[in-house]
């Protein structure tokens, strides 16, 4: 029954999601915008700023960490080593996609139902709170993960069109694949779960978005930590990070169920 109910929620939510032009555009276009924008930055940095960056001690430290992890990069000229360093950040940049889609979609998921009055009718059905919240989370997380994977393909296509195809072997490391296939779904679920928590606690979608925004900062921090050479995410570190986030997902679901107050929703929202 639980699976049937979650499938039921997914079917309905997707029906609503893809009949709303704003949400459909957010899911389909935003990932390409994120990838395109960062590739543009890296291209500009590579083309016009590599000398300055190479002179910086921060990037020197990061390059040392890169070469320890990917020794094959040592054979490349310094400017291309810098490019490999930048392109390797994509494993975390791609994480921004599910987070941003989460903020845009999950934040509205409960608030909208509160405002239209459908939530009270829903709360009078036998659906359990965790089934509802998990269904709502997966509604956004599944397309967000799929779009992240498509974006990864788009990224590889663009770098080969830019003539950097020879570097792709140095970017597609085991850590990259772990990040894509384990960390991305875990982060997607977390960001959507926080969006749903925000949505069930907030009085409007703005408040919900603010709560969901919490996830953006750790991801920006991950990029910052790696690009400045503080910590380089090896395969093991990426695996540990993914497992930690999966554990946080489980805690977040429990917290979401606890924080979802059927009573206050029924009383405060009419």
């Amino acid at each position, binding site marked *: 029954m639980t699976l049937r109910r979650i499938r039921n929620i997914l079917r*309905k939510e997707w029906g609503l999601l893809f009949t709303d032009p704003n949400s459909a555009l957010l899911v389909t276009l935003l990932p390409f915008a994120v990838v395109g924008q960062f590739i543009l930055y890296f291209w500009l940095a590579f083309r016009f700023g590599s000398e300055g960056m190479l002179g910086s001690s921060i990037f020197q430290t990061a390059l040392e960490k890169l070469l320890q992890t990917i020794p094959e990069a040592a054979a490349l000229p310094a400017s291309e080593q810098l490019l490999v360093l930048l392109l390797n950040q994509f494993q975390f940049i791609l994480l921004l996609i599910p987070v941003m889609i989460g903020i845009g979609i999950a934040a509205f998921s409960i608030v909208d139902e509160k405002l239209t009055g459908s939530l*009270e009718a829903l709360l*009078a059905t036998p659906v*359990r709170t965790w089934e509802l919240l998990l269904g709502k989370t997966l509604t956004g997380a599944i397309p967000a993960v799929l779009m992240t994977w498509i974006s990864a393909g788009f990224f590889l296509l663009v770098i080969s069109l830019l003539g950097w195809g020879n570097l792709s072997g140095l970017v597609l490391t085991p850590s990259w694949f772990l990040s894509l296939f384990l960390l991305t779904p875990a982060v997607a679920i977390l960001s959507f779960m926080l969006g749903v928590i925000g949505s069930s606690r907030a009085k409007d979608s703005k408040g919900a978005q603010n709560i969901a925004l919490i996830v953006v900062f750790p991801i920006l921090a991950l990029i910052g930590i790696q690009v400045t050479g503080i910590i380089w995410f090896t395969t093991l570190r990426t695996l540990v990070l993914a497992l930690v986030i999966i554990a946080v997902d489980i805690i977040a679901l429990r917290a979401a169920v606890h924080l979802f107050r*059927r*009573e206050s929703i*029924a009383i405060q929202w009419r």
Partner: protein
Amino acid sequence: MAIIETSGLSRRFKDVIAVDDLTMAVESGEVLGFLGPNGAGKTTTIRMLAGIIRPTGGEAVVAGHRIDRDVEKLHEVIGMLTETPGLYGRLSARRNLEYFAGFYPIDDVSTRVEKYLKLMGLWERRDDRAGTFSKGMKQRLALARALMHEPKVLFLDEPTSGLDPEAASEVRQLIRRMQEEGCTVFLSTHNLAEAEMLCNRIAVIQTRLLALDTAESLRRRFFRRKVIVELQSPDPNILAVVKGLPFVQEARKEGSRLSVELMDSERNRPELVRAIVEAGGKVVTVSEEQYTLEQVYLRLMNEEKISDAQAHS
């Protein structure tokens, strides 16, 4: 057999008592009208009985399920129509129903959805978005949603509020049909005529239960039955004759009409008419004064205000 039983059911929101010590029983198959002014605790009571909010005192059993313990099972056997239809405007009527049906143990959802869309007269518009429907159609669709899993108890919170007379009449006909099919209906409404038309019994609430009885019994409780005798021409002597009759409790003259309170309206009425005729009165019509449920309700509310004022002084 009672299908809803409450005992001392109460709900407090911080310092405000919304429902106080509600003890009542609703029989299976009954339509109970739940009346009261705004803020009287009608919606809070419905939400408690529907397991959406928990009581802060007392207990209640609905269709064999404790409202505070067995919520999932309770939700399988109740249907609820909230004040707003709460439909998904971008989904079709059919998808709206299919979605809600998906939460209940229904074997053939499509057949069930078809049955209720047809019952509500919405089958022809099944693939249209619910957002394009009129208020009446939305209300019928919401009613279909509440009924689709064939609940034992149906909670209706002001189902005809904001509807035009035609749409309201359609909803009332549907409620009647539900009753004929054996469904117990708990109907919260401000429309007293509607309550009188549909309900077997009426409960009046003002935080606490003020009255619970049939409309007729409530009328008898608050108003004595008066016989109205319409005379061809007013005659002051006849009033004196009527007042002198042993079974007359009170008599008044209002133009050419006599308003008479009898000890036993049924038995004393022929004797009253004979006495008037013997005194030379020419009787045109004899009828009984009709009191509306509204008059009963207003009397109840008035008494409650007086008793409140006395309690506070």
